């Protein structure tokens, strides 16, 4: 078990090096005149040159990469070229927002999806149709439309929640809830239904298994069979979908972050990448890749825990 985790993490490190290298090369290839963009339209050429020298942009590419790599190994990811803050501090504060957003959304999506999916699979009928239809709609409606509708109704007209801005939970829990509720709903709408659809399929599949009948033949009530046996067996596929959704949301929160003015990772990603804020993008790529590796590992471990047949090797 431990050696499995160690091996997975080692493979993850190789992956990280590969990803960062690719990202670095891509960024430089597309960076254009970064120094000019940092100092803006009104700066003189001399200032541009000075900026380039300050950032080491005049050095050969391999040297820049080496410098980044040695810094990164020592935990120094440099400072943003466009905002001056250290990449570590900046990412930490953004990650706190985005992870809160994504984790809450995943949690809510998981809970609701399980309930809806199980109901849809066991009751069929209208609730099944609602889940099916909802998953299609949730998939098809652009996220910003949902976000906009939520803002117009709940924040501008009803004033229940905040339309913009993020309040840290350390400052005020109720404020935090007010600032994060609408974004979470906007994000969750898309995934609840699709995960519920997956749960439904997995539950239907598990329900058709022979052991369900055998358990019932021993007098185990069908509700208990569903919630204990079927759900556990359906849990694997559902977890996999949740994992994919989680990873997808890491970058996909950008639209919601923009609409609600949340200082999250997605917004940072768009700004940093379009500006070619290389230290930031590298940090960002690294951070997301680490999260992806960890989430995948956690999902695999959870699946192994749920399903004894999955062998970790």
């Amino acid at each position, binding site marked *: 078990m431990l050696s499995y985790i160690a091996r997975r993490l080692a493979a993850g490190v190789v992956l990280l090096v590969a990803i960062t290298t690719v990202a670095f090369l891509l960024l430089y290839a597309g960076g254009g005149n970064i120094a000019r963009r940092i100092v803006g339209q009104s700066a003189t050429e001399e200032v541009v040159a000075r900026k380039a020298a300050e950032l080491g942009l005049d050095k050969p590419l391999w040297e820049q990469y080496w410098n980044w790599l040695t810094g990164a190994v020592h935990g120094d990811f440099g400072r943003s070229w466009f905002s001056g803050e250290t990449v570590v501090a900046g990412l930490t504060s953004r990650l706190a927002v985005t992870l809160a957003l994504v984790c809450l959304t995943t949690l809510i999506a998981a809970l609701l999806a399980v309930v809806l999916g199980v109901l849809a699979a066991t009751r069929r009928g209208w609730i099944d149709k609602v889940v099916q239809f909802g998953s299609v709609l949730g998939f098809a409606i652009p996220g910003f439309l949902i976000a906009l509708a939520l803002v117009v109704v709940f924040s501008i007209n009803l004033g229940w929640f905040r339309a913009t801005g993020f309040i840290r939970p350390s400052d005020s829990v109720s404020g935090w809830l007010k600032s994060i509720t609408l974004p979470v709903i906007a994000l969750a709408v898309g995934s609840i239904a699709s995960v519920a659809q997956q749960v439904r399929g997995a539950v239907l599949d598990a329900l058709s298994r*022979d052991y369900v009948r*055998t358990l019932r033949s021993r*007098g185990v009530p069908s509700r208990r069979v569903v919630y204990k046996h079927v759900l556990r067996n359906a849990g694997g596929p559902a977890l996999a979908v949740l994992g994919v959704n989680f990873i997808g949301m890491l970058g996909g929160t950008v639209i919601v972050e923009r609409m609600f003015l949340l200082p999250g990772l997605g917004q940072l990603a768009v700004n940093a990448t379009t500006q070619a804020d290389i230290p930031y993008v590298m940090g960002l790529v690294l951070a997301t890749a680490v999260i992806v590796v960890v989430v995948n590992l956690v999902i695999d471990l959870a699946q192994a825990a749920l399903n*004894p*047949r999955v062998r970790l090797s």
Partner: protein
Amino acid sequence: MSTVAVPAVPLEVLAEAPAGKVSLLRRLLRNPIGVTCLGYLVLLALVAVFGRLMAPQDPDRADPGNFLASPSAEHLMGTDSTGRDVLSRLLAATQISVAAALLATVIAVVLGVVTGLIAGYFGGWFDSISSWIAGLLMAMPGFVVLLAARAVIGPTVWMAMVVFGVLMAPGFFRLVYAAVTAVRNELYVDAARVAGLSDARIIGRHIMSVVRAPIIIQAAMAAGIAVAIQAGLDFLGLGDLGVASWGAMLNDGFAKIYNQPILMLWPSLAIALTCIALTLLANALRDELERAGAAPKRKKKAGAARDDGDVIIQAADVIVHGADAHSQALTGEVLLDVHHLRVGYDQPDGSVTEVVHGIDLRVHRGSIHGLIGESGSGKTQTAFAIMGLLPAGGRVLEGASIMFAGQELAGGSEALYRGILGKRIAYIPQEPMSNLDPSFTVGSQLTEPMRLALGLKRAQAKQRALDLLDRVGIPDPARTFAAYPHEISGGMAQRVLIAGAVSLDPQLLIADEPTTALDVTVQAEVLELIRDLQTELNLGVLLVTHNFGVVADLCDQVSVMQRGLIVEAGPVRAIFHDAQHPYTQSLLDAILDDAAPRGPLGADREEVAP
């Protein structure tokens, strides 16, 4: 043997491999949702091809004097922020958006499918490398890659879609890879190999035909995602606003959302409808595939089609043999009295398909009643009906009576059966492996009903379970108790199931082909066990089987079933020695055990006709 650890849904689809393309399309056309979506997509394709020609006005011609106009006779959908006719633009934009989505999808499909086929079929180093690259691509934050790529190659919608196609390719790779590794070992692929087909031909013919449908489904989803991503990029202002596309229109509309909100409606509708159509189409395809896949499966179990023509069986008189000396010796009370049992399945069109057409059956305490018949004769349906455990859609039809120890069970609810299942009627299934929940230990599955039904404490239940495991002849009860189902053999698993069946001291045991899945030597031991338990606990047993040897070994009474009817019933010796019904006779004739051996090659004597 093991269908173990197959990762769920998509494989489920391909395991029930699809029928031909033609018939799938035809079936899709009969599906109202499918045909609606297809219709929309065909329309979309037409607009994509001819949109510019259909446009009432020049889609690029701006009119700064008449911008943000509301819909009017001249501009049916109004004008945009530079006064261009929105309808014309929408028609023209369709071309770009559809082409862009197609580009991404085609790239993803080609890349993913080709590599997936090669990696899955041949394995080896290509497998390792491509799997690693797929993992790498999947771990890349896709959005960041898209943005970075945009920075490198500029904001053209085509390059963005190429990159996005590459990013989506691992999805197809994994799908195809999983499908191919699953199909690679299918018997028909072996057969093709033995038939002398080249690898290219096997891939093209046999593997592709299986992965084709899942690919189409995934491609429909992928196209939808590509449409959405393209719109998302444009929405963020990261797209190519120079060309007319839905995303560019959306961007324009969003900027003017407070001035002319209707501007957003048209591209949103186009995007949403297209995504919905693609998703629903994928769903409809999947549904059709599942339906197609389910059909033969049902046949396999219920066996609707037969070799021997279409003989229609009338509810003729049942040939009932009188009691003989042996059966008279068994005079236990009547435990189960089934009268005129009919089982039917509700069909989507409201009709009912009847699979058991009114049978009578009696099981006495302390005796074993064999229900024998070929597949599809309705014997298993009868057993399920008695236990109230018919699959979804199935029910006991009006007029039937299932009296169990004086209680009417026919059509009973789950509540009615609550005190009966397990405690008074127990069940031994056919397939030992699939009847144990793979996720729980043997012990927990044994003790759960005991604790629920008998209210035993954990320790008591465990002790009882260990005793039972010992009783059914499991050498190391403690180890088996702690094991997961996949860790024990089929014979052991069947013993565990028998232990579970008798764990609540039932009066009636319903055993559905309890030894069919077992090896002969194991079968003999399990039959021995059932007989011993039956005598020991004075059980009434309803034994469902197709094997006359098993009947001869265990049964006191026999009912012969054919096509949902009992055609002949009586004491076991009467059936074997004095069969009256032609069907029973034909079955007995087919038994090979008494046929003479063929003898060595060249002996050249007549074979004994069966």
